[in-house]
């Protein structure tokens, strides 16, 4: 397949007669195609066969038309920016669609989420369990009915709180002695309903809301949101604003990666690394504070530009700080790379092969550590990441283990510092306004926007129906994919490595955590309060 048009032609043949191009976005590169529900599976088969990746599966209630299911395919390997948004309307009670999760794991979580949010049913979904609600909902059953039938299980819940993660997920490890055989993941323990909330507030107020989805990567969230809105409004952003946006986004990436490095150190018991990395991170936070007035939530994006200008004095200060950070971090990076015990704990641990990464649809540093060269900044450049403005390279590592995930992030910090320095250089010479003065009322329309957040590809899909409140806001965060990909890394690892592997994808979910260990060999049931458990220590660990 050479070009986007070839793909569309071929798709037209497959989907005939239910094939209708209903709109374009992003300079004709985002193609919206309407089809009928029962053709979705054929389309998915074709799209996957040409190496396309499912970015997200989501749905929106379009009122009279019924529920609109959207498959967002990335065709970035064919053409920059190219995306296909394939959608179909479904009606009925309940609305039923064929499931593409039976073809690829990438759609697994997305479809489960859609089921949860809109009550859609997917035919043929391999794992149609709740994702936000408890598995047993609405039955208050405590038994683990979702377990594999042939394996007699010994359940040993480690939780509900686990110090390895500051945020909440439920990892149920199927273990044989110390080796993990399989893993089951439950997220959504702290679902906040931000997408729904965003649909009840104006676009302007939403900017601040989406920034608060995550304190660590608030800039990419806001950037993706305003990008989408600007695509709907079709307004251009002044040059200076774009450079400030890139600067803020990269500062954000540096601080996020440094934060992660520290946490990773803590997970292998190297608390000193935590402090060392965070000490280096501190000047970066100061820079963000200097430019925007807040250390954590920069809140610097606005529709059509940025909210704060950077004065020359500020830029000079930031430049000096960045150079210091670069120097300091270089030493620390060498130190980590040569530290024998760090290597021992990370090398060859939690390996995810390139094939697994593709199958799981991993994104960001996690995918790049497995040798998969994807980066939204290169594949669909937003702001000023394209060649004309800033030069940089995508960092890729081949091994796919925890060490290479560390190294990818370490190298990305240097890349980001370079990008920041280039931006500062440009900002010193480029003048002009920081926000567009074009005033427009919101048209009807929809837009997809993607941003490379520190953890990977962040996707926003916004539908506007002509008022200043968005009709639909759909967000797919990078961790969503990477946590799902953990399944592939945790298989076959050692129990003691589980925290660092889980930590190595930089998971970002909120607030409680449950880990459950299931012994797959022996047949006895362990319960925490029963007599069995009381005698456990004296009978031996494996029951």
């Amino acid at each position, binding site marked *: 397949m050479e070009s986007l048009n070839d793909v569309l032609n071929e798709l037209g043949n497959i989907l005939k007669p239910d094939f209708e191009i209903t709109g374009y976005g992003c300079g004709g590169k985002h193609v919206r195609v309407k089809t009928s529900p029962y053709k979705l599976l054929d389309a998915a088969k074709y799209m996957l066969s040409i190496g396309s990746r499912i970015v997200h599966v989501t749905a929106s209630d379009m009122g009279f038309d019924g529920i609109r299911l959207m498959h967002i395919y990335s065709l970035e390997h064919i053409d920059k920016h190219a995306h296909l948004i394939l959608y179909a309307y479904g009606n009925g009670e309940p609305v039923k669609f064929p499931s593409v999760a039976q073809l690829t794991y990438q759609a697994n979580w997305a479809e489960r989420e859609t089921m949860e949010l809109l009550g859609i049913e997917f035919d043929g979904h391999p794992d149609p369990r709740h994702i936000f609600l408890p598995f047993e909902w609405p039955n208050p059953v405590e038994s683990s009915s979702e377990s594999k039938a042939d394996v007699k299980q010994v359940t040993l819940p480690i939780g509900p709180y686990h110090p390895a993660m500051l945020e909440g997920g439920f990892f149920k490890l199927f273990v044989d002695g110390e080796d993990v055989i399989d893993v089951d993941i439950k997220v959504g323990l702290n679902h906040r309903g931000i997408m729904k909330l965003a649909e009840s507030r104006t676009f302007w107020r939403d900017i601040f809301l989406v920034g608060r989805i995550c304190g660590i990567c608030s800039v990419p969230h806001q950037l993706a949101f305003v990008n989408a809105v600007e695509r709907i409004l079709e307004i251009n952003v002044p040059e200076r604003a774009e450079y400030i946006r890139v600067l803020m986004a990269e500062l954000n990436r540096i601080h996020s990666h440094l934060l992660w490095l520290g946490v990773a150190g803590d997970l292998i018991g190297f608390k000193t690394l935590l402090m060392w990395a965070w000490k280096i991170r501190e000047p970066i936070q100061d820079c963000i504070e200097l430019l925007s007035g807040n250390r954590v*939530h920069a809140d610097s994006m606005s529709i059509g530009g940025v909210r704060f200008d950077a004065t020359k004095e500020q830029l000079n200060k930031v430049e000096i700080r960045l150079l210091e950070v670069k120097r300091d971090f270089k030493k620390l990076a060498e130190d980590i790379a040569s530290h024998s015990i760090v290597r021992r704990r990370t090398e060859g641990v939690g390996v995810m092969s390139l094939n697994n990464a593709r199958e799981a649809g991993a994104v960001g540093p996690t995918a790049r550590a497995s040798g998969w060269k994807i980066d939204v900044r290169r594949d669909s450049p937003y702001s000023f990441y394209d060649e004309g403005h800033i030069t940089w390279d995508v960092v890729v590592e081949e091994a796919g283990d925890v060490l290479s995930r560390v190294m990818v992030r370490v190298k990305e910090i240097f890349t980001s510092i370079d990008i920041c320095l280039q931006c500062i250089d440009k900002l010193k010479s480029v003048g002009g306004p920081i926000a567009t003065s074009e005033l427009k009322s919101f048209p009807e329309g929809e837009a997809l926007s993607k941003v490379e957040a520190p953890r990977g590809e962040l996707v926003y899909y916004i539908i506007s129906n002509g008022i200043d409140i968005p009709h639909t806001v759909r967000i797919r965060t990078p961790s969503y994919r990477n946590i799902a990909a953990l399944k592939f890394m945790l298989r076959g690892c050692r129990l003691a490595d589980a925290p660092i592997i889980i930590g190595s994808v930089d998971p970002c979910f909120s607030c409680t955590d449950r880990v459950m260990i299931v012994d797959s060999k022996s047949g006895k049931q362990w319960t925490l309060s029963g007599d069995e458990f009381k005698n456990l220590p004296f009978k031996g660990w494996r029951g």
Partner: protein
Amino acid sequence: MLQSFKRALEALSKPYTIKYPAGIGTEKYSSVPDNLRGMPEFNTDKCIGCSACVSQCSSGALTYIDAEGKRYLNINLNKCVFCRRCAEVCPEDALTLTIKFEIASNNKSELKVSNNVELSKCINCGNYFAPEKQLNRITDRLMSGLKEVKAIQYAHDDLPKYLHLCPNCRKTLSFKLNIHTRKHVLYD
């Protein structure tokens, strides 16, 4: 590992933690930039009570209630996310974000920034309906925008009549006062 050893030894004499809450200057605060977004503050003289800030407040921290002839604007600092959106939209620059950030308190009622503005009475029914200052400001702006002598004349005559009517009365009285006939006079 040797490098780590060296770094640890070097670090022994160079603590990075500042002395907060003790100390003075940089011992206490590592950096407080001038544009820090801290506690919002009203400029009581400038605020006209237009409540533009209320409608745009990103977190719903800013609210107002009209009571007893006054409009009370309140910022609940527990909710405020210090985004400076309110200061951005304020037409009078009456709201600013100070660099005060040590606002933790044991007393909930202290976590509040408030301002009040006088409301004016409807000249017809006598109910309070809009801030006095806002109406004056509107008059000023309107008057200063007009160039034609005739328009100024009309505005001068009519504005006090209509502007000081509450929305309800304006509806019922609009025929009586015959606003619409003047329209073409103003704009042709």
